[in-house]
């Protein structure tokens, strides 16, 4: 079990040397369907992945991994690369974070495969075109969010959100955005010594300084010592979209639009 097969080595060496992945023969999971490996994969998942993907892999800070669809590619070799290397520029860490060996990564993938039945595709609801119209019009989403280079900057870019979040997570984010916040978008109000208040989203902070984007999309940097207070807001800069602002049908449309991107 623990011994590395030649092509696992090849991948690792290939990755290390920056060799284009496609030139390697496409490896498949050597422990696919192996009960012991699946069990080990579950243990590993609970230890290293559940904090972000949730205990049942239905998604917390990280996406739902049970839909059977993977944006980063769902083949064995693509999943292997995602878990081994992580996804640069996102919260998804590489195996260095969990200290997983290649064998353990295969065990994790064997486990992930058991979570998504082949027919687990969610039912298609809503109308993408209506969703697009709502997004850029009445619902004003585009004032704060970019999609493919167009739109506002205060909220996260949503070009890929439809594929990295589960439907349930998206509904929660839109109906009640204040439960938790995306990193880099925590709402703060900075109060200067002379009482001026500046609202924005927190880009970074250490014990001595704070970087924000204010509601006019200006990036500002402060020293804590120059401020009277930094108020950590409980509610998101994004308004709650209750049924009064966005009916269930409209919500389906917006989600369909985001999913179609």
């Amino acid at each position, binding site marked *: 079990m*623990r011994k590395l097969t030649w092509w696992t080595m090849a991948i690792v060496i290939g990755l290390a040397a920056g060799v284009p992945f496609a030139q390697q023969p496409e490896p498949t999971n050597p422990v696919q369907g192996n009960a012991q490996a699946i069990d080990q994969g579950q243990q590993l998942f609970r230890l290293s992945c559940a904090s972000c993907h949730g205990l049942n892999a239905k998604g917390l800070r990280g996406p739902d991994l049970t839909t059977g669809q993977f944006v980063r590619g769902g083949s064995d070799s693509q999943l292997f690369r995602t878990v081994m290397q992580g996804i640069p520029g996102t919260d998804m860490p590489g195996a260095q974070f969990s200290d997983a060996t290649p064998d353990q990564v295969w065990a994790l993938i064997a486990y992930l495969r058991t979570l998504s039945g082949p027919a687990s595709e969610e039912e298609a609801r809503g109308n993408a075109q209506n969703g697009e119209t709502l997004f850029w019009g009445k619902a004003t989403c585009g004032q704060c969010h970019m999609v493919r280079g167009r739109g506002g900057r205060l909220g996260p870019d949503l070009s890929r959100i439809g594929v990295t979040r589960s439907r349930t997570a998206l509904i929660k984010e839109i109906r009640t955005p204040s439960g938790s*916040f995306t990193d880099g978008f925590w709402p703060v109000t900075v109060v200067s010594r002379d009482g001026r208040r500046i609202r924005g989203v927190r880009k970074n902070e*250490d014990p001595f300084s704070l970087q924000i984007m204010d509601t006019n999309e200006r990036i500002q940097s402060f020293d804590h010592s120059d401020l009277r207070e930094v108020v950590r807001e409980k509610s998101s800069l994004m308004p709650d979209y209750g049924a009064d602002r966005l009916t269930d049908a409209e919500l389906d449309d917006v989600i369909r639009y985001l999913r179609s991107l």
Partner: protein
Amino acid sequence: MRHTLARTAALCIVLACAMSIGHPGVQAQQRQDSGQWTTYSGDYNAQRHSSLTQITPANVGRLAVQWIFQSGVSGRFEATPLVVDGIMYLTGPDNYAWALDARTGRQIWRYRRQLPEGLNICCGRVNRGFAINGDRLYMTTLDAHLVALDARTGNVLFDVEIDDHKKSYTATVAPLIVKDKVIVGIAGAEYGIRGFIDAFDANTGKKAWRFWTVPEPGQPGGNTWSGDSWQRGGGSTWVTGAYDPSLNLVYWGTGNPAPDSFGDARLGDNLYTDAVVALDADTGTLRWHYQFTPHDVHDWDAVQVPILADITMNGAPRKVLMTANRNGFFYTLDRANGELLRARPFVRTTWAQEIGRDGKPILLEANRIGPEGTVTCPDVGGGTNWMSPSFNPATGLFYVTTREVCAKFYAFPQQFQPGHLYWGGAVEAIPGEPGYGALRAIDPVSGLVRWEFKYPRPSMGGTLSTASGLVFAGEEDGNVMAFDAASGKNLWRLQTGAGLRSGPMTFMHNGKQYIVVASGGAVIALALQDGR
């Protein structure tokens, strides 16, 4: 300059030879006063309190970078470097190790270990540093060996197995030299090892004694484990302990029971996990123990460095052992017999109401976990963790990096399989509640927090205290900082660009006091620019 260095080295050999005749360990301890840093925690009492006073609250604002060593190795530093006679000895990820010119940061030699494939390592391919005895360095390895290196060349003098890495034993601890013995701990509880503390002959590498942290049936404490669960009961010992020469006792913290969360697999108190044990340094015989978290289900290892000090409590002088535990309580114990003198939470704790008069926690509902999940504070990382605290006898304060975080804990039944993670549970972060960190100064007499300095993120950096009244600390967002030891006022800081995980240390060389921290893959040496 090469010339001076060579001469220093030559002198070092002469001294080292002279020293190895007597009790080298004690010699090593005495050297601290001469501005060296000769053991993991700076001294046997593990106070991480230096007698050096060149850098003061008045001039610390002029602290400047002297050199930066880029290791070029990926992974994080968790080691405290040693400095003896102008040479710095440092270990890094994957059992790399270096000797550097402490004045310039230039490499003298590098050691690299060939590690076998398929090691089971739960929590980082790290190492916490060397021990030194005369001209020998000792390091534990990820494949659970003890290696002795020649201090001038890095050549291997001996390489002995502590235990079988195929049974998921691994080692990251910095050894402790006591007289003619090298004392080491072990890791691997997440894979269901049976823990121990070992002593080896410093000259030959022969095993001198072993203390099992999980007793077998029939031994004292053996009845605190149901069935055969003791065989894989955990109780790792992965952070260096302290030593009291007058009592000849070694104090060492022990880790979590295995499986971490599914406590039903191991009914009972699970001695001696999550405890501090006091062992006879010559024989390894247990003199007393104090268990902080009986029957732990939260992975709250008690591997925090225990600090020894002589303080006054209720008008009487007491020889105490102090520790801020991962379970969120601060404890002051009598170190001669393990009697509990004080216990008080230093972070938010929801699992126990208080520590009772009998020394046992009075449990709350949030301590119970099952498949449906329970929110408990502190989280799995704990109120503090392995990062070193420090103690200043003049202020009487204990300085520790603390974490204010809660988490949702789950427990599930799990069959033990050798070589597989044996966790029996899971932990979920709480959405929207990332928590925060703080440097806190605790009075060990009352157990009360005297001052704090908040960090936006929970941090894992150690602290250092100096006799001039300074505390140095590092935090997760990259700052190394100096504080006034009495008031907690921040006096100096440097943004290093990577979270600080290991403990800062200090030494004196050629009339200049240095402060050293590791940040990311780099080691940074700081001093006053003009040496004064």
